[in-house]
């Protein structure tokens, strides 16, 4: 099947060599999927040309959502459509996120459904399969769904994962989470404001000064029986940027907080912003000031 690379010039020899050298050992160029991925899935058959969109052309594929991927180290997406004899459509997208940590990130930002047992982590619900494997993030989508379509989606997912290479490690930031009380399936990793606000709305302005140079972990932590508090742990490029972000956050979100970074919010909960080197830990919805402080103190953060 012909593959169409959308827009942008093809890589020149030098750029191609650099790209080849920087590719994670577990995979290859996404264009190879056209030959590897089965063109039939049950009664569904691949239709049209396979498409590839890189960082410059992703806008051609996404309706205003490309930034969500571009906020990660997204490289390319390989996309194929399947149709059944009745004309219903499935869309398979395989995103090369540049590294397993980034694939974890895009997967982790939007989890709602039960696990599907495909790849390193997965979920399936109502015609949408999402999973990650190595540096790849994969979605299989049907706009209308029934039990039979669901089976085809899961079968296709199991076929695809065979071609994605070995598993890879998640972000190193995961090691800095509290030892207990964290809901792993609600922990998200990202870099930018757009991902934070989709996961947990903080502010309409970028008061935490997030961008692609920042690494963020957002976790739900059990504070009391049946209650969750929220931890946002951000690693900035240096201590000065972390300090500036803390000042900006407190000014925009909790201007009444003192030097300790603590403030009681209108719902009776506490917000706490604390610096540790180039890390900024913010606790939202803490039941008490002490609990927030203890949580941050318990984080196994590196000394530098």
């Amino acid at each position: 099947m012909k593959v169409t690379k959308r827009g942008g010039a093809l890589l020149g020899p030098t750029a191609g060599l650099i790209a080849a050298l920087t590719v994670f050992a577990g995979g290859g160029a996404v264009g190879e999927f056209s030959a590897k991925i089965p063109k039939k899935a049950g009664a569904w058959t691949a239709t049209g040309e396979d498409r590839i969109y890189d960082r410059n052309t992703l806008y051609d594929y996404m309706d205003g959502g490309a930034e969500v991927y571009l906020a990660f180290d997204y490289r390319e997406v390989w996309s194929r459509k399947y149709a059944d004899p009745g004309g219903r459509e499935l869309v398979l997208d395989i995103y090369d996120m540049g590294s397993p940590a980034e694939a974890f990130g895009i997967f982790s930002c939007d989890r709602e459904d039960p696990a599907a047992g495909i790849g390193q982590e997965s979920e399936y619900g109502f015609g949408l399969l999402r999973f990650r494997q190595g540096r790849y993030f994969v979605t299989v989508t049907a706009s209308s769904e029934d039990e039979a379509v669901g089976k085809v989606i899961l079968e296709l997912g199991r076929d695809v994962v065979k071609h994605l290479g070995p598993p890879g490690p998640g972000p190193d930031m995961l090691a800095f989470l509290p030892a207990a009380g964290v809901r792993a399936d609600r922990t998200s990793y990202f870099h930018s404001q757009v991902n934070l606000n989709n996961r947990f709305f903080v502010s309409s302005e970028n008061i935490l000064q997030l961008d692609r140079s920042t690494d963020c972990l957002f976790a739900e932590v059990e504070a009391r029986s049946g209650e969750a508090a929220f931890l946002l742990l951000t690693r900035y490029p240096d201590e000065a940027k972390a300090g500036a972000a803390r000042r900006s956050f407190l000014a925009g979100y909790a201007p009444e907080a003192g030097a300790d970074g603590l403030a009681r919010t209108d719902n009776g909960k506490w917000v706490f912003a604390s610096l540790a080197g180039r890390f900024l830990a913010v606790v939202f919805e803490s039941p008490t000031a002490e609990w927030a402080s203890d949580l941050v103190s318990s984080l196994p953060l590196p000394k530098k």
Partner: protein
Amino acid sequence: MKHSLTRRDFLKGTTSALLGASLAFGREGPAKKARVVLIRHRDVLDENSKVNADILQGMLDESVARLVDQPDGAKAFQALVKPGETVGIKTNVWSYLPTPPELEAAIKRRLVDAGIAPEKIGLDDHTVRTNPLFVNATSLINVRPCRTHYLAGMSGCIKNYIMFGESQPFYHPDSCADLGALFKLPQVQGKTRLNILCVLTPQFHGRGPHHFSRRFVWNYKGLIVGQDPVAVDTIGLQLIMAKRREVLGKAQELPPVPKHIQLADTRHGIGTSDLNAIEFIKLGWDEDILI
């Protein structure tokens, strides 16, 4: 003064008020309220969500007539456009949830009734910048379905004009904050006669930036019409938030921050996002109306 909407506003229960309220402190209020009409009909969709074109035509006629205080749809469109004009209908072709063709046809029919030659009516989405009928248009009709959007919070009438921009990514930074500027482009400014936010089957939630699922749309069976795109989207956002509150819970009431609606008012001045400055008229079926 730059006002930042935060989670704390949300926790205080003031989010809806803030999102619906103009924050242009010190600005004089509009002399006349922006009228927005919501019309619903129980039978406009059948059990398979197929559109009844006749009922939809009636909904369009009744709502636009009420909007501009005319006795019927034909006269209402005569009040919006003049014979001899070239009119562009800016539609939306997103494959999963496009503007229903029955609605496009209903608009065209009334434009012809108003004296617009069929060959002078453009219907387009992605190529409006170069389509001669839009290049030469003296009036525009803005129509699209209402849905949440991963980046902008909501795709409504304001965002529908992004195809008039030379570069779409140019309008994406900061949660698409400056979409309101599209209405000041030379090809657009002063030409929009009617905004129609189709809420026959709105989408209240999405999973990722590129996803559509039937589980997140519902048969609301309505149209929201107005001459002020900001006021129309402000009402649309109230509907989306109400549905999210009902299905997803209070904690997920707010889609990704739809700040562009408020900023279209306070920064770009193309309409009002102040609920107090909107005359909201509801017609027709009121079961599960939510707003």
